[in-house]
């Protein structure tokens, strides 16, 4: 009995071992198969990942190309009327945006002495892709075409008509109905000292700063250009604002103004800056706003283009000189006379400013344009030369101060006013221009 039971147990144990061995064999086989499948999947996954990366790279390269095209389309320099200072700032969105701006002198041919006019425009097209670059090209092309085909020299320019022309052309192209163009077009008339404009689509105003007056908001809204709306012939009227001496205009697309930081929108902060520092000439006000804006945003780059223009018609005595190697000696005397008018003020930095200007006049190898302004508050020199950079000049005069350095003050205490001292020479530089400013009084703000 015991032997039979033992045999049965042995048999059962042998069967169990066989079963487990078989199970182990199949599990191992299944595991190997799974391993193989995993390897295949992983290879497939790697292939897909590589493909995605390649597509991403491809898109990035294409966007980069479109961004370069967009940047190249922007004007190298803006036309600046003799008694104005104009400064611009443009920072594209992460990839590309659709902002564009330009200022050029309107060609009136033989009638030029009677019509001293400049066309000023800026626009923002919806989206931030290659499409928006194509739309920008279209709008620019339309403006160019208008002056080639529709406008005769000496003829009055209506910004309303120009706007309608662009709108009608846009409708004919049948752009997708979810695209839209926000556009501001103005004629700056130096004979009348006015700015006549038509606009559509912008959410935020432009600002006018006049000496004794408070900050004036000018609404540039209205319906945008869109195929969903069709051509709007009578919707965008022409309006006119005075551009007397001592007036500054601040123009911007929505990107700067609607930038938020927490619950704050830059729109509100900008108004305070404009009120406080309206005494600053255009290039310096531009530098200050740029610094203030980046202090406001911190590391947040924002998703839209940042574009703004500062146009300033200052009060005071102005000279505009065009210097070449041939006439440099004669003009030098004129410039020195202009600077020496200020010697009565006993300004501590006048000597250094004189040295800076003289250093540019000596060994003059290319043409140099000089614009200088002298009024009760400040003395400004602007040097323009497209062939030499300004880096060595800035390095040679380490005592020069850039307003962009003032952002340190702002960062530490945003509530504190930036104080401008008459003990300093401020400078602002762009690709081909450099500006120097001396204040005659302390703390003009």
């Amino acid at each position, binding site marked *: 009995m015991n032997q039979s039971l033992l045999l049965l147990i042995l048999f059962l144990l042998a069967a169990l071992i066989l079963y487990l061995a078989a199970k182990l064999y199949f599990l191992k086989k299944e595991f190997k198969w799974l391993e193989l499948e995993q390897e295949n999947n992983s290879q497939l996954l790697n292939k897909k990942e590589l493909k995605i990366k390649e597509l991403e790279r491809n898109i990035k390269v294409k966007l980069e190309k479109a961004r370069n095209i967009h940047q190249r389309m922007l004007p190298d320099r803006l036309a600046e009327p003799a008694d104005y200072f104009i400064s611009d700032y443009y920072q594209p969105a992460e990839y590309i945006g659709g902002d564009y701006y330009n200022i050029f002198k309107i060609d009136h041919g033989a009638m030029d002495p009677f019509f001293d006019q400049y066309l000023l425009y800026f626009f923002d097209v919806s989206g931030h892709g290659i499409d928006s670059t194509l739309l920008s090209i279209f709008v620019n092309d339309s403006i160019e075409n208008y002056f080639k085909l529709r406008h005769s020299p000496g003829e009055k320019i209506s910004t309303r008509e120009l706007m309608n022309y662009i709108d009608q052309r846009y409708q004919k192209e049948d752009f997708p109905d979810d695209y839209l163009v926000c556009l501001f077009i103005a004629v700056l008339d130096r004979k009348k000292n006015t700015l006549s404009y038509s606009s559509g689509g912008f959410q935020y105003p432009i600002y006018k700063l006049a000496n004794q007056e408070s900050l004036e908001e000018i609404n540039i*809204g209205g319906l945008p250009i869109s195929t969903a709306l069709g051509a709007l012939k009578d919707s965008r009227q022409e309006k006119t604002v005075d551009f007397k001496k001592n007036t500054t205009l601040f123009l911007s697309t929505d990107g700067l103004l609607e930038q938020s930081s927490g619950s704050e929108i830059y729109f509100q902060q900008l108004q305070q800056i404009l009120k406080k520092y309206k005494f600053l000439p255009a290039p310096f006000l531009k530098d200050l706003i740029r610094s203030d804006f980046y202090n406001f945003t911190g590391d947040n780059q924002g998703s839209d283009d940042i574009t703004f223009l500062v146009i300033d018609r200052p009060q005071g005595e102005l000279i505009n000189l065009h210097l070449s190697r041939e006439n440099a000696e004669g003009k030098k005397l004129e410039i020195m006379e202009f600077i020496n008018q200020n010697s009565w003020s006993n300004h501590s930095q006048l000597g250094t400013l004189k040295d800076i200007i003289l250093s540019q006049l000596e060994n003059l190898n290319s043409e140099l344009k000089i614009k200088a302004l002298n009024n009760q508050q400040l003395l400004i020199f602007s040097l323009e030369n497209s062939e030499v950079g300004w880096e060595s000049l800035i390095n040679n005069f380490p005592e020069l101060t850039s307003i962009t350095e003032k952002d340190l003050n702002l960062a530490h205490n945003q509530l504190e006013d930036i104080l401008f001292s008459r003990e300093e020479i401020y400078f602002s530089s762009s690709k081909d221009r450099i500006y120097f400013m001396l204040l005659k009084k302390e703390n003009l703000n």
Partner: protein
Amino acid sequence: MLEESLELLVEKNTAVLKFDGEVIFDNSNQLKEEAKERLKGKTEVDKLIIDLSKVPYLDSSGVGVLLSLFKFMRTREGSLAIAEPNAKIRRVFDVTKMTEIIPVYMSLEEAVNQN
């Protein structure tokens, strides 16, 4: 994800299209296409109300979506209205004079009754 940010309710000839979240460049094209796709099947709809009560922000591409839907309804000989935009979006409509072509109502109820 996209379906969650867009809801279409239809009653007789009136449709309420509710967006949930920002309507910006990143999602505007998809939202526009999805909305049109859903409306295509509802041929009886000739009154569309876009409910913006859950939209905190619209950029210019978002405005483009509304204009595109405005044209879509016009082609259908229907109408478009906007309901419950926040103050910021309401300001965009006022400044850009879009209120002259698209009626804006402060509540969905008002939009349904008026439309």
